[in-house]
């Protein structure tokens, strides 16, 4: 099992929380502000990065205490601890030994869906690109290094452009590195989209046709020689703009579904959510041989009762472990005894949880 124990200390609204977990999904419910999302965020800190809120470590410590925060977990048989003391960066311990955050990526795959993503299909390409890259990274761990290399070379090139430096050899050197890393990034993204499409099941959570869109340029080109040539030919326009206008960093994710090949952005609110869930479930299935944690915040929002019931069936059939949240217990009725139920409320300013058993 992926996660067998979880304990929080002084994390946001939680003074303490100790949970033992088993393979069953956990349904977390309670009123607004009771601390549900905070639990999911805590679990998301078992992945490298800033978690599902993208928050800095100091913000996560329980206010008014100045004591930092700590999360301990038993994950895939290993003892994981992470936390931050006041004024210090987040640290990670694996079996009591300090390790870099990136070690977490090898231990667990944490996939999340949060309400902020409800507008993913209608918002700017940036959100979709980040979503795509998170999926890609979960499937291909080398994606992180490639993205860092591409980004670094591009920031160097942008600086040359901004400073109006004309040395063509310097541009060629950077562009060839952007082309190498960028070509590999694009190949990874295409492979990830193929894997997701192969693992969609259709039905209430429609199988989408996914495409990597060029993003007003050539973000779908995976051939390093041709990327390098395109960057070189764009140099004049980029110089005028003072930055790199096109390339893999401008990629966008397109999705459409159904007999009419309906674009995601034109679908109803509930349909858009179903589409997102379809991709997330496919991502979990594509990672079947690895320890996956699925965090679904406000999972029931925008879904009708039938869709909800269908979703719970799919979640229970996944090889992944999942934590779900919603405001009321009735939202999880269709789960029946397949899920554990955790009721959350506030007491004396802090969050408190009680497990409900029938």
């Amino acid at each position, binding site marked *: 099992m992926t996660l067998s124990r979880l304990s929080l200390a002084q994390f946001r609204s939680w003074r303490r929380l100790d949970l033992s977990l088993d393979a069953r999904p956990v349904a977390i419910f309670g009123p607004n502000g009771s601390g549900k999302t905070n639990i999911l965020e805590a679990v998301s800190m078992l992945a490298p990065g800033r978690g599902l809120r993208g928050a800095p470590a100091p913000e996560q410590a329980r206010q008014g205490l100045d004591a930092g925060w700590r999360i301990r977990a038993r994950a895939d048989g290993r003892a994981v601890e992470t936390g931050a003391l006041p004024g210090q960066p987040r640290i990670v311990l694996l079996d009591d030994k300090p390790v870099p955050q990136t070690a977490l990526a090898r231990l667990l795959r944490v996939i999340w869906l949060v309400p902020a993503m409800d507008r993913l299909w209608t918002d700017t390409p940036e959100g979709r690109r980040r979503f795509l890259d998170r999926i890609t990274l979960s499937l291909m761990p080398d994606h992180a290094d490639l993205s860092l290399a591409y980004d670094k*070379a591009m920031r*160097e090139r942008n600086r040359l452009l901004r400073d109006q430096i004309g040395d063509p050899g*310097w541009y060629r*050197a*950077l562009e060839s*590195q952007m082309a190498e890393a960028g070509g590999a990034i694009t190949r990874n993204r295409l492979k990830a989209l193929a894997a997701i499409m192969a693992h969609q099941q259709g039905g209430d959570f429609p199988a989408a046709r996914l495409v990597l869109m060029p993003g007003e340029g050539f973000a779908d080109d995976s051939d390093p020689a041709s990327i390098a040539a395109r960057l070189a030919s764009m140099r004049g326009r980029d110089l005028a703009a003072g930055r790199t206008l096109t390339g893999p960093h401008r990629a966008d994710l397109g999705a459409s579904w159904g007999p009419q090949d309906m674009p995601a952005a034109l679908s109803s609110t509930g349909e858009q959510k179903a589409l997102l869930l379809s991709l997330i479930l496919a991502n979990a299935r594509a990672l079947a041989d690895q320890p996956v944690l699925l965090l679904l915040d406000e999972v029931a929002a925008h879904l009708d009762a039938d869709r909800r019931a269908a979703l719970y069936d799919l979640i229970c059939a996944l090889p992944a472990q999942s934590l779900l949240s919603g405001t009321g217990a009735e939202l999880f009725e269709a789960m029946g005894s397949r899920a554990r139920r955790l009721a959350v409320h506030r007491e004396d300013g802090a969050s408190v949880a009680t497990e409900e058993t029938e």
Partner: protein
Amino acid sequence: MRHPQAEGSDDIQALIALMARLPGLGPRSARRIVLHLIRRRGDQMAQIAALMEKVAQNSRECLCCGNITDRDLCAICTDPNRATGEICVVEDVADLWALERGGAFRGRYHVLGGTLSALDEIGPEDLGIPRLLDRIAGEAVSEVILALNATVDGQTTAHYIADALEGQSVTVTGLAQGVPIGGELDYLDDGTISAALRARRRL
């Protein structure tokens, strides 16, 4: 800042503070070293102090290759046996020393003293790249080995130099596998460096 009086004079405190800023040392190890030296002040400390002063007076960069030396030209640049027609380009002196420890390379070096980085405002002139190109043209060089780190900046610099040498009658090579991404030459063991050097490939 006030110090516990048990920790000696102001000079000793200042010495500990200076030592603690050295690479690989912190306040704790600096205190231990200073205490050790004071116990051995008659021999070890006096010898170290005398050598420190001498090295500080006499050290300079070799005018030709950038190696550290106490003369105008370093021992490698003045040794006629090392005029093999090969120049190995490295980022800094620590890399040169690492390659020398490996003992696999018999030619001469060129120390750039850094890597190209627009963000850090380090350009080709700051690295003496025009001087390197002059050297290659003037010294009957047949092969240039770019032993630069596998970081983005290291590889940008390698590309830049290879690009500038295109069309000239020199072979340009880079270190083969064995050099990890983002790894620094100085941290590799001698055998790995020698293997990477032997298996160098044309760029």
